[in-house]
């Protein structure tokens, strides 16, 4: 159950950090309609995070030992998990914590990640863990839309102007090192494969390329070859960015502990 908790937290952290990043566009988007769209997507992703955290909290409260360090808050809640862990305890992939950069980089990150998420949830909805399966099944429809919306933008920007094409090339260059990590099973994933609880992410890589490449192709963009992979996020070893994200996100809960909001 520690592994299940770690896995659920990993899924939750992925979505929370991506939602936190994406929602920074709200009120600052390049086009009003797209400001609304990215905010809507951020909301979807935040909703997924909440579902995963609620389940993780349930797992903690049901278990006798407390494997996650949020000792000040009893019983565990979605907020205790989101707001009272430090960066070394966060298990999100490095990809989602990367800076928003320009609209192109944000779009690309969403495209790369939601394409992965789609394949992941597609499998996870058949997990032997009923709760994870239910969350994934519900999220799958949302993610399908995120893939569609972001792929349209990747195409539009890749095949738009010279400038937009170059910006997409740069974005790919910046984000590509974080792709491999998505497809490397962490210990907690390995441990849950046999019982068909976790999804074997290493098996998703080929399919992911099959989803990505046609879009890149239409966008006149290319996937880099053999870029060095950066990993560690799933084990809590993040980039220096995450600490700043958390300092800002967690301020209220840290500054005013034991309060109801």
């Amino acid at each position: 159950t520690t592994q299940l908790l770690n896995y659920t937290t990993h899924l939750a952290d992925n979505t929370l950090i991506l939602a936190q990043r994406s929602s920074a566009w709200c009120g600052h988007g390049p086009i009003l309609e797209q400001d609304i769209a990215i905010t809507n997507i951020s909301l979807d992703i935040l909703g997924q995070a909440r579902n995963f955290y609620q389940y993780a909290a349930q797992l903690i409260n049901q278990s006798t030992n407390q494997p996650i360090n949020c000792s000040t808050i009893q019983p565990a809640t979605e907020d205790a998990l989101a707001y009272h862990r430090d960066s070394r305890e966060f298990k999100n992939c490095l990809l989602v914590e990367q800076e928003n950069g320009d609209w192109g980089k944000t779009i690309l990150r969403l495209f790369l990640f939601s394409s992965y998420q789609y394949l992941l949830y597609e499998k996870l909805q058949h997990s032997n863990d009923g709760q994870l399966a239910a969350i994934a099944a519900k999220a799958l429809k949302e993610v399908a839309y995120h893939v569609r919306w972001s792929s349209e933008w990747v195409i539009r920007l890749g095949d738009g102007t010279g400038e937009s094409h170059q910006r997409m090339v740069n974005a790919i260059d910046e984000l590509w090192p974080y792709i491999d990590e998505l497809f490397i099973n962490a210990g907690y994933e390995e441990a849950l494969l046999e019982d068909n609880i976790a999804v074997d992410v290493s098996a998703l890589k080929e399919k992911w390329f099959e989803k990505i490449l046609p879009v890149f192709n239409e966008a006149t963009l290319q996937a880099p070859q053999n870029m060095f992979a950066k990993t560690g996020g799933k084990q809590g070893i993040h980039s220096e960015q995450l600490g700043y994200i958390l300092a800002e996100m967690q301020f209220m809960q840290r500054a005013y502990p034991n309060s109801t909001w």
Partner: protein
Amino acid sequence: MQSHQFENRFQQKIDAETKIEPKDWMPDAYRKTLIRQISQHAHSEIVGMLPEGNWISRAPSLKRKAILLAKVQDEAGHGLYLYSACETLGIAREETINDLHSGKAKYSSIFNYPTLTWADIGAIGWLVDGAAILNQVMLCRTSYGPYARAMVRICKEESFHQRQGFDILLTLSNGTEAQKTMCQDAINRWWWPSLMMFGPKDSESTNSDQSMKWKIKRKTNDELRQQFVDMCAEQVKVLNMVLPDKDLQWNAARQHYDFGGIDWNEFWNVVKGNGPCNKERLAARRKAHDDGAWVREAAAAYAAKRANKQEIKAA
């Protein structure tokens, strides 16, 4: 038909409560007034995203974060309805937005105040949205059809927002000492600017009479303001907080609350651009627009390419 005949007919329609529609004849001044008012209203929705957006990343719980995100998104939606309503009067969205960025067009001065604590998000919901709603409920019956219909949609969401804002404050008012202090402090800072949202006193409002006659407005600034004070003076009791006005008291004769004098000096200063955040708000909007230029260009270029391809296919 002569001009004054058009004018008579137009006024008859207004008087008969028939909505004016985009293709109907309307006096130039009516059109101009509407463009000014609707675009100002649209800009207020868009600029209004900023002070609240300031707390999205720091919302104190995931639930509040989700509610706040949805709310700010709704405001973008309202902006969209209103820019569309404005376009029915023959002014393109791009042009309207340029007027905002150049400083030519105004937006509600309330958004030039900073959101300093989480309680401000509650206070904006309760007081600022509360004040807006009184105005907007009236505008649901405004004489220009597209504007009235936009308002009906907006009003539904706004009253939802107001309840959410009140709920934030209610939670704070039942919370720790620090939370109660935060709650009262936010009410103290937002109360007077909220009263200013209804605009100058009737005696000094230049556009009011004509707007009333055209039924663009149906209540005067002072009427709406009194309604707002009466409403808040009761609601604040539920919060166990006070409004920062020592002159506030029930007047049995008037069957209204009396309230203290507004600092019109501050009001005009903020309108003139000297509020705490005028520069920041405009700078943020301009930056979003400028940073997005390459995106809009790319989208246009791509659309043109596609249209071109389809033409070739069709040929």
